């Protein structure tokens, strides 16, 4: 009987720990790392080992003349940090993997209102999770747009 209790306690601890790695704590971390910008949307990223390298896609409507920030909080057991790519149709606009380094935050200056794809994957080959937050940094008038 004692063994059963211990097993149950062990399982319960595992569930609590893993939800802490990928659940609301991760969301809190992502929000605290967002800084003073205005929250727009978050993406709850769960990548099973079998498909973590191909990843998952999200669609998001972004507006012209707007600077956005995307920040990512990675699960503590991720073998590697997740990589995000922004696509306009089939055109890759950018990624948080740059010069051999994965950045957990990047800014995107959007000049065309439309639907964009966010592709998220992880090269670790194991289960991975992350929470990404899209926030509003700045809106420009026509003549203020950075060149």
């Amino acid at each position, binding site marked *: 009987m004692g063994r059963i209790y211990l097993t149950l306690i062990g399982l319960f601890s595992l569930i609590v720990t893993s939800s802490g790695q990928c659940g609301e704590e991760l969301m809190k971390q992502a929000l605290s790392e967002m800084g003073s910008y205005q929250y727009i949307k978050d993406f709850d990223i769960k990548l099973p080992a079998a498909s973590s390298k191909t990843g998952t896609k999200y669609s998001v409507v972004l507006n012209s003349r707007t600077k956005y920030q995307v920040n990512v909080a990675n699960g503590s057991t991720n073998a590697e940090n997740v990589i995000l790519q922004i696509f306009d149709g089939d055109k890759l606009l950018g990624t948080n993997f740059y010069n051999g380094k994965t950045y957990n935050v990047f800014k995107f200056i959007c000049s065309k209102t*439309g639907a964009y794809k966010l592709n998220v994957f992880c090269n670790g080959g194991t289960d991975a999770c992350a929470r990404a937050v899209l926030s509003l940094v700045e809106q420009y008038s026509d003549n203020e747009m950075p060149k």
Partner: protein
Amino acid sequence: MNNRHIFRSTAIALVVATAFGVQSCVGGGSSNNELGDVPVDDRDSGLVVSGEVVSDMIQNISSPVEMANEVKGTGVGFSQGILNPAGMENKYETSFKKAVNLGVYAADLGYINTFNKNLVVVDYLGSIKRLADGIGVGQFLDFTTLTRLAKNSTNLDSLKQLSVTSFNDIDRYLREQNRSNVSTAIVVGTWVEGIYITSQVINQTHDKGLIDRLGEQKDIVEILRIVINTYSKSDRDYKALSGKIEELKHIYEGVKVTTEMGEPETQEIDGMLIIVQNEITHIDISEEQVKSIIAKINEIRSSLVE
């Protein structure tokens, strides 16, 4: 109607549109026009997006935060009179009406929060909570915390953030529960109210940035049209809305949206990664078109909130 059927119907609609000569796509096609030899994405011949993208896209078609900031950026003051008054929720009897007006109030809340009118927020939170309860999602609105934050003027950033995350949680839950028709109604309500507020400010200010933003909604109207038409086959409320959105789409056909294509750049500045799209969007919209669009938006909005 299940989601699979909805997505298939959408895909069929898009295939038919493509077969009839729709050629450009978001970010994909390019052609030359009056801008000379600059390659452009000319969206006037139509919009092609996959059914998968449409179903996903409807989730975030309208951000109350962005709309409200844009309006505030014109310098125009807060005007409570343009909002749907709080306390109207008892009029809304069907699930569609409750959901669509939950979206309307979400946009109003975004506008009120942006202008830091926290005392007004409290009235709206009550209406929002009752509508959310009416469609079985009230558990995602922490009414007590939201009200406490609204009454404490030092916590307004937390109020703004919790307001938006609550609505995102509602949207996520409804989709997980295969109630996309309800979440779509919320999104439609938020979009219509956002554009309605924008239109009212355009009437006051004739602000070019806002007029361009109105013109840029051409693609968004097409996405809404596709999704609303799919639900309209089995839902009377959606059917009534569908006809009006078709009329709005017809008005938008005269609006020309072109993009000078450019190559995106990535830079690291002081340790911060910045991706710049490097394209330029041109909106060609006449005063008459602006008036027609605003009139149609007013009509649609009235039919939703009345």
